[in-house]
């Protein structure tokens, strides 16, 4: 891959992350009403704790450059402050506790959705007008209009509450007598299934619609006519010519989509009481636990930037035209 492209994208990512950190600072320290009203508004803090926080965060020092520099140093060192709600635990610890459930749920969901969504979309685009196409397209359109948590509530209602096939909340059965690893895994899997399906179903709709129109557009390109003129079989044309080109906008949009999907993922966790970053966000919101919220914002934003960066790299591998 051309080094200019690589360097350009890397610098871009770093710059964006820097801007995000600054934005974080602006939001929580520079808003009118002084940081006191926002950061220290928690009744659970005793007077000494408040004084300690003021000192540590340097809230008595001038905003710029002192507070900013302190903040940047602290963030770079991994110190994101201390949570109000969780009784003084460091924000980093609070986040670390809850990141794995979200990664598993969301990561697996994306993988499933990418594989099945793209495959379904490619098939619909290829066999345009077939029964699969109409049904698939219609279904995708409806799913696209459903907020993730509505899909979640639907699945929860039917399969967990109604049919009792799956547990209704949490990640593991509390107080369950699961000693072997296998039974623990099974327990985990049964709790994971419905929220995972929710995330996957919500995403599959979007990816299949996108891939379908991408394939349709690609099939109208001149080089596909050339391929037909060469007497290649339909399968070969699809695999060698149409798909590699149709995938390009798909990769881009999957990356852009990640930012939007986060919102949905948060609500899914709420519906299923999945102990990840999503439920943490809602809890922190309720308690106005700003250090935690700040940490979540930072974490999620940086993740999206990194994911976009990874997508740029993948795109660079796939499309020779952008490698300067």
């Amino acid at each position, binding site marked *: 891959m051309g080094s200019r492209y690589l360097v350009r994208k890397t610098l871009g990512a770093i710059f964006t992350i820097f801007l995000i950190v600054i934005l974080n600072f602006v939001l929580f320290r520079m808003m009118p009403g002084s940081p006191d009203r926002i950061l220290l508004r928690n009744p659970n803090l005793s007077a000494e704790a408040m004084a300690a926080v003021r000192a540590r965060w340097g809230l008595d020092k001038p905003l710029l450059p002192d507070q900013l520099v302190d903040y940047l140093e602290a963030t770079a060192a991994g110190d994101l402050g201390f949570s109000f709600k969780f009784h003084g635990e460091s924000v980093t610890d609070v986040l670390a506790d809850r990141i794995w459930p979200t990664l598993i749920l969301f990561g697996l969901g994306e993988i499933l959705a990418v594989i099945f969504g793209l495959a379904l979309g490619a098939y619909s685009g290829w066999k345009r007008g077939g029964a699969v196409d109409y049904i698939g397209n219609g279904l995708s359109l409806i799913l696209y*209009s*459903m907020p993730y948590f*509505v899909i979640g509530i639907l699945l929860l*209602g039917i399969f967990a*509450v109604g049919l009792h096939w799956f547990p209704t909340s949490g990640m593991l059965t509390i107080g369950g007598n699961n000693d072997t690893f296998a039974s623990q895994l099974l327990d985990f899997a049964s709790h994971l299934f419905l929220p995972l399906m929710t995330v996957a179903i919500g995403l599959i709709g979007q990816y299949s619609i996108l891939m379908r129109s991408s394939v349709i557009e690609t099939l109208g390109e001149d080089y596909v006519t050339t391929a037909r003129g060469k007497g290649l079989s339909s399968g070969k044309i699809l695999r060698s010519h149409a798909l590699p080109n149709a995938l390009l906008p798909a990769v881009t949009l999957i990356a852009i989509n990640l*930012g*939007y999907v986060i919102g949905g993922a948060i609500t899914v966790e709420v519906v299923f009481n999945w102990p990840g970053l999503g439920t943490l966000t809602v809890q922190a919101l309720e308690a106005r636990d700003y250090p935690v919220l700040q940490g979540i914002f930072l974490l*999620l934003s940086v993740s999206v930037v990194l994911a976009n960066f990874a997508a740029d790299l993948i795109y660079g591998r796939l499309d020779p035209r952008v490698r300067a």
Partner: protein
Amino acid sequence: MTSEARPEAAVRNERLRLRLRSIRTFGQRFAARPDGVIGVVVLIFFSILAIAPSFFVGDLQTVTSASGLPLDPPSLGHLLGTDELGRDILNLTVHGTRISMVIGLLATVITIVLGALVGILAGYVGGRTDTLLMRVTDFFLVLPTFVLALILAPIILDLVGSGSEVFGIRVTLIVIVVVIGITSWASTARIIRSQTLSVKERAFVGRARVIGSGGGHIMWRHILPNVMNLIVANTVLVFGGAILTETTLSFIGLGDPFAPSWGEILNAAESAGAMGLGAWWYVVPPSVCIVLVVLAFTLVGSALDDVLNPRLRVRR
């Protein structure tokens, strides 16, 4: 003099005639798309409900004016059952229509105005202004705007204080409107900028500049009417997206329990443990409404896009 006045009137009449004719052509072409027509019908239905909810179901029920027993399943007296406070769900849902639609509308207005402003400015002026504006736009595009909205809303609420009203709308809802507007304008800006760039190249813009028209005048009289088609199609889709975003924000607790939108009703249902208790009637009506409305917007939006911005289809 009269000899100069008549051509003026003639030009005006001609313009009016052409405009009416293009509206009629548009109407015919749009009517040929069944998905668009269905969408419009659905939207009209919900708009009627939104305009005068009290006319259909009476005033919004509150804790004190709750008309039934808590969590009662659907019956003749309460067609959609009741919530945990005994309020009629049909009543809540119909009133929720107005709140959801109004929030969506206002947020859309902000999004489109901001997006169009930035897009046209960046596209027309070009140069460093363009680069700067696009950097900002790209930043907002990369940022997970939902998370940003999530953070901004409580901060603004805490600063401004909830519970008061502005122009008859509760502050909590205003905050949601503003937050959605601030975080959604970026993709509209990008789309409109592209269109502005291509309109800018057209001959009549060059001519306008030659005769000395100022930038602002050109942008208002020449560029804007020609990107209007795109703006209209985009507005419809943005509206649907705004309702989805508002629903999600309300669901996680940023809504107003005193002016419940559909998302807020679902939030209340979740808090009351409706699903666990099997109270499906609490959850289904607002969900169905959300899906129908967003679906309608999507269908209308894509039909509009096809009719207003026809793309040359070379093959097939």
